[in-house]
């Protein structure tokens, strides 16, 4: 057996794992009968269907006659930087407030660009903070902690 279509093989595997996980979790809830379904019935069978689809996708990926398909390289840098800057934003928001956590978000995420410069990033940060305060906090009146809790009290 040879993996001819790598992306399909990996997707199939992902479907099987997720399908089985959902089916197993559903089995922990009451299944009920076809006429009186418990909370586990519908998701259990959906999980099974999903795993079955995964098996079919894998079978298609190992056929020797299939058109070859290789896995692409992942852009781990941008992926990590973007997601991490959102996580940091979330961690800081409730205690440090919108303004300070925005600095972390904008500066942090800007690092992911291959054209990064400090000058442009700092100007951008300043503009976006003013924009966020005017539009989100004052105009749309969205509920945000704006300043750090130890200052605002």
């Amino acid at each position, binding site marked *: 057996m040879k993996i001819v279509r790598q*992306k*399909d093989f*990996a*997707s199939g595997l*992902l*479907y099987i794992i*997720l*399908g089985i996980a*959902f089916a197993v*979790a*559903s089995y922990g*809830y*009451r299944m009920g*009968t*076809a*006429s*009186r*379904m*418990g*909370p586990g019935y*519908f*998701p259990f069978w*959906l*999980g099974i*269907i*999903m795993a079955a*689809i995964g098996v079919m*996708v894998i079978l*298609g990926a190992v056929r020797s*006659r299939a058109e070859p398909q290789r*896995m692409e390289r992942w*852009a781990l840098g*941008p992926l990590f930087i*973007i*997601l991490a*800057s*959102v*996580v940091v934003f*979330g*961690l800081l*928001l*409730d205690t440090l407030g919108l303004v300070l956590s*925005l600095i972390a*978000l*904008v500066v942090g*995420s*800007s690092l992911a*660009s291959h*054209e*990064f410069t400090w000058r442009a*990033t700092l100007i*951008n*940060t300043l503009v*976006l903070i003013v*924009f*966020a305060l005017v539009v*989100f906090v004052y105009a749309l009146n*969205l*509920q*945000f902690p704006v300043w750090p809790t130890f200052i605002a009290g």
Partner: protein
Amino acid sequence: MELFDNLMLGFASALTIQNLLYAFGGCVLGTLIGVLPGLGPLATISMLLPFTFGLEPLSALIMLSGIYYGAAYGGSTTAILVNLPGETSSVVTVLDGYQMARQGRAGVALSTAALGSFFAGCVGTLILAAFAKPLTEFAFEFGPAEYFSLMTMGLVGAVSLASGPLLKAIGMIVLGLLLGLVGTDVASGVMRFTFGLPQLWEGIDFIVIAVGIFAFGEIIASLEHKEIREAYTGKITNLWPTLADFKRMMPAVLRGSAIGSAVGILPGAGLSLASFFAYSLEKKVSRTPEKFGRGAIEGVAGPEAANNAAAQTAFVPTLTLGIPGSATMALMLGAMIVHNIQPGPQVMTSNPSLFWGLIASMWIGNLMLVILNLPLVGIWVKLLTVPFKVLYPAILLFCCVGVYSVQNSVFDLFLAVGFGFFGYALRKLECEPAPLMLGFVLGPMIEENFRRAMVLSKGDFAIFIHRPISAVLLAVTAILIIAVALPAIRNKREEAFQED
């Protein structure tokens, strides 16, 4: 005429200064983000939705439809000026639109797209208004079995008409359905798949999934490609088409509106299919098909009219049956539910001013779009020259503020990050994420109807075939699957023959 009475009622409730301002604001925001290449309507709508949550239902819906049309139309501007489709539905606009721009006719191409879209939008609105009543009455005959079969057909239709491998897309639907079940089971009160986290008791918010998978995913994917943009930088002088241009574009607009209106009603067909059909039709009926791809005005007018008409009629199943036909419509449905409007046959009878107000507001949104796009096109052109490195942190800011303000919850932000990673992985594995969104919104509805149907039939699965409407819907589903599978079988057989 009852139709016009209804439309009048709609305009009476929608046409206030305040609502016009919301429509305007929605169009500006939608176009602003929709113009940016790489961010499709799904990402645009999902990150802008939370900003409508604080408004009254009708105003919110009006702003929403502004955002929707702005997002759907913004891509055309990008297609014409930057040679990059802002979204899949303007892929064919690139072919002739950018060529027109290079010949110094960017203004004409833009106004053709805007006027064609507006005309098609008007046609679409009338069709939506005309269809609403009979379809709603028809929908009252539907029981749970019919709804289950209709949703199944919608889901399968959505993936069979789209591109890409069918099997993987169905897998994504199933995953979407499962994710939709996370949270408290309404029938039994049991918490499902919540890992003991109280934040998940109410289920995952659709904004979290949409922003995570589409917006975060698209930002990361755009950063990966060091794209070289070939933007039209000249000044846009002449906006008005000549009389000769008008003569060539009018029939194309009419044909495009007809195709778009028809395709838009189909579940899942979506805007891209409409514009694609319209383009090939224009090329077929043209006396000068060799001009296509070299700046033929029909090649802009037809597809642009078609995708806007489809954008309008796509609301037909969503509003009358409560069943969205595409991922974008699923988002709109989700937004309506946030405002305590459960779209479906009841809305039209129980809250007619809201229902017809929404339909009127779509027309207002369309009008705003023309007003906005022709004089303000210079601003959008400037926006296109802003480098991506400055834009994406701003987009990210919109996303974060949007996700957070749904429930003022940091947990949702972390969840969105998780879905961002997952969405990027799906992209790399060539799993189309749009069907997941559709499945996610339909998940709880499809389970509920399935359960009810089975209670009624006392556990007999044959109920889905014994009831005639349900049987027809399931038969159509089966035909769709076979139709998509057939050419694949044929190809495989050809492969096999070649090797022998």
